[in-house]
């Protein structure tokens, strides 16, 4: 196993065929392909952490749990709230920081704070010829040359093998609370979430569970911050949202944390049979997509990001993308029993061609996770 960036470069340079890059091995997402395993978990460790500068640099194979623990010791966190895919995908292994970046993994707070890619300050990686490259750095504002940092986030190892990443971190909130609206249909729920997200109260999560925890739909608005501010904002939100239905405040820390962890990791679909898709749409289109899916495929759905992220569990082999007809957005397969459809959608002929050409430049031999993204 490679244990340094240099060895990683040599391993790629001397590869004779396709390689399957493995961080923690927790996320078998994407199209299936053959390739020799290239584990990067040997590249591990936090190389720099400056709490006063909100900056963390870590080697790509560093376990996410190690990073979380270190950040928590200084009262900080990864603000984009990366989800843990293991329950949903039925996988084992230890999520790594490189895997998180390669898949641009975010969670409920993405709607307010931004995605993983928004907090990614710099990358070091090995391209398909074995060259060690860097882009960006460790500072928060950097427009020096092209932003390959964003390009690498969410490229699933198809442009290069990450060896080190720098991230902006943020303070953990002192306290949090959920404002809950009970019994709303999907359309009303998204309207309520839009009202909350369009309020001055700095909402850090807005999700809707049509089945709730006990069969009754629940719409969830999260507030985080200093205790007094959260209490004040919760009261103001209750006032703002009372026209939509019965509104309650949940502020027991364990309950709030569990509710949002469940939303983040889509626990409602854990262990259920069927295919799971992840759909990103304009938030107000979310309920329409949900309605179409239920009508056509008998789907189960849940909404995050104020309606903009639709998770759906459908019968195996269902084509979820037809539900987006006439709307914008995109759908990705997270888990499917058979490889009937490409996991990643087309971005249109021209952008697909551009993407293919970019891959051909970064990985001329086409050996890095070939075909994973299509």
């Amino acid at each position, binding site marked *: 196993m490679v244990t340094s960036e240099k060895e990683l470069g040599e391993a790629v340079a001397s590869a004779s065929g396709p390689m399957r890059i493995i961080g923690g091995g927790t996320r078998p997402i994407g199209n299936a392909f053959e390739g020799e395993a290239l584990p990067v978990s040997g590249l591990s460790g936090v190389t720099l952490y400056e709490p006063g500068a909100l900056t963390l640099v870590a080697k790509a194979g560093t376990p996410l749990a190690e990073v979380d623990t270190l950040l928590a010791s200084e009262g900080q966190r990864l603000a984009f709230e990366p989800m843990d895919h293991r329950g949903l995908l039925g996988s084992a292994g230890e999520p790594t920081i490189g895997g998180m970046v390669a898949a641009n993994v975010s969670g409920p707070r993405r709607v307010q704070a931004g995605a993983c890619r928004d907090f990614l300050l710099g990358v070091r990686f090995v391209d398909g010829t074995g060259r060690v490259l860097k882009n960006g750095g460790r500072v928060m504002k*950097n427009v020096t040359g092209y932003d390959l940092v964003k390009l690498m986030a969410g490229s699933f190892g198809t442009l290069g093998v990450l060896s080190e990443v720098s991230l902006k971190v943020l303070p953990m909130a002192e306290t949090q609370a959920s404002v809950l609206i009970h019994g709303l249909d999907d359309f009303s729920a998204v309207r309520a979430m839009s009202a909350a997200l369009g309020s001055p109260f700095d909402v850090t999560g807005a999700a809707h569970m049509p089945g709730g925890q006990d069969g009754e739909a629940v719409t969830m608005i999260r507030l985080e911050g200093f205790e007094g501010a959260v209490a004040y904002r919760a009261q103001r939100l209750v006032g703002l949202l009372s026209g939509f239905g019965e509104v309650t405040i949940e502020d027991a820390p364990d309950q709030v944390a569990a509710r949002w962890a469940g939303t983040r990791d889509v626990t409602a679909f854990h262990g259920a049979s069927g295919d799971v898709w992840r759909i990103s749409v304009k938030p107000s289109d979310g309920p329409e997509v949900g309605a179409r899916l239920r009508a056509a495929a008998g789907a189960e759905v849940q909404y995050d990001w104020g309606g903009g992220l639709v998770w759906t569990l459908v019968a195996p082999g269902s084509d979820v993308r037809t539900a987006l007809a006439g709307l914008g957005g995109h759908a990705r397969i997270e888990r499917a029993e058979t490889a009937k459809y490409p996991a990643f959608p087309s971005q249109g002929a021209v952008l697909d061609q551009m993407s293919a050409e970019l891959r051909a430049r970064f990985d001329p031999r086409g050996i890095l996770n070939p075909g994973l993204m299509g």
Partner: protein
Amino acid sequence: MEMPVPDPAILSQKAQIVARLRAVLPKSAVIDDEIETRAYECDALTAYRCPPLAVVLPTSTAEVSAVLEICHQLGVPVVPRGAGTSLAGGALPTADCVILGVARLNQVLEMDYDNRFIRVQSGRTNLSVTGAVEEQGFFYAPDPSSQLACAIAGNVAMNSGGAHCLKYGVTTNNLLGVTMVLMDGRVVEIGGAHLDAAGLDLLGLICGSEGQLGVVTEASLRILRQPEGARPVLVGFETNEAAGACVSDIIKAGVLPVAIEFMDRPCIRATEAFAKAGYPDVEALLIIEVEGADAEIDFQLGKIIEIARKHDPTEIRESKSAEESARIWAGRKAAFGAMGQINDYMCLDGTIPVSKLPFVLTRIRELSGQYGLDVGNVFHAGDGNMHPLILFDANKPGDLEKCEAMGADILRLCVEVGGCLTGEHGVGVEKRDLMFDQYSVDDLEAQLVVKDVFDPDWLLNPAKVFPLAATKSRRAA
């Protein structure tokens, strides 16, 4: 500063090129008169000037596409131009180029408060985006100091920042989608009202590419609800070390101010002489602003002041009203103008790790002595984005060159301590030749191949961002 030698073949075909452009654009949208093209000879980096071959001012994506298709066919370089406020020379023409100005692409296309975005044509000014939505209580967060004049097209090209980035991020964090025309005239839509890319994050790649990959004609921008209120506190210190440590402690304490601005003594004195904001005569001054409802602001400012007191401040002024806030900000907002009253100045924007602040300020002072040029420092302390203002006399032979050499030394210093050459202004022509100080040959090659994909003939803004020697073979091809 070197620019490519204009292609004589293109210069000799001016009449034919202009005729082709006139055939697809309204009469008033093509400027080829030698006097009129002068208006486009430079941007805000006024030290370098060169009138272009012609200027086009299209009003639609279709017109932009037609222009680019023609220039592509004829092999004419195109330099896109927003509002011409680039401090880095991003819109500096060459004599054989067509300037594609987006100033007439200024319409709001869609306002969607439920989904919290606005779609605009890219020539619209930054401040007028907020202007379009503020009646409903919303705003567009990135706020470069040129926001009254600068265009969204330029903001996207340079990935512009502003004073409030610490909380709200820069352009790339607030950009949801673009309509972009490729150099060969093809029109692409990237992103939209939804979040995140379906495949590779091409939107993230476009943002900050300095107009070298395509011409953005429309942009979907995230809008946010305005906070209930905002108020600053001003704190003065006798040392830069104390101010730097205070910034670090505030951030560590879990308070996330919306802005932390820093000014040093030379800048404070210049500002006082000019704007009379009543600032204390201290070594370092911080303006820290927080947002929220009144009680939330009081609480956060209380916490900040408590932390500041541990660093022996010589002055603490907490704003209790809109008038007091305005007074605190008055000096900071006048700082650039104040420096400009003293002499010509060059404004750099290298970024450093916040922890290196005292060291870098000391080194800048040493360089100032060495070169015999005064420097004032204003900067966004929360994110380490420096703004050293080097004073020089443009009418004094050799002064500009001296100033540029000193600026280059400061930027190398920023890179040396773990930072970068430019935090928000862009590379343009100004920092082009310093790129190898930050990146290796391979690192830069990885960027050059991106341009090869989007603009294989290297016709879009070709003389910017990269050292000319590194791109010569590509531009000549």
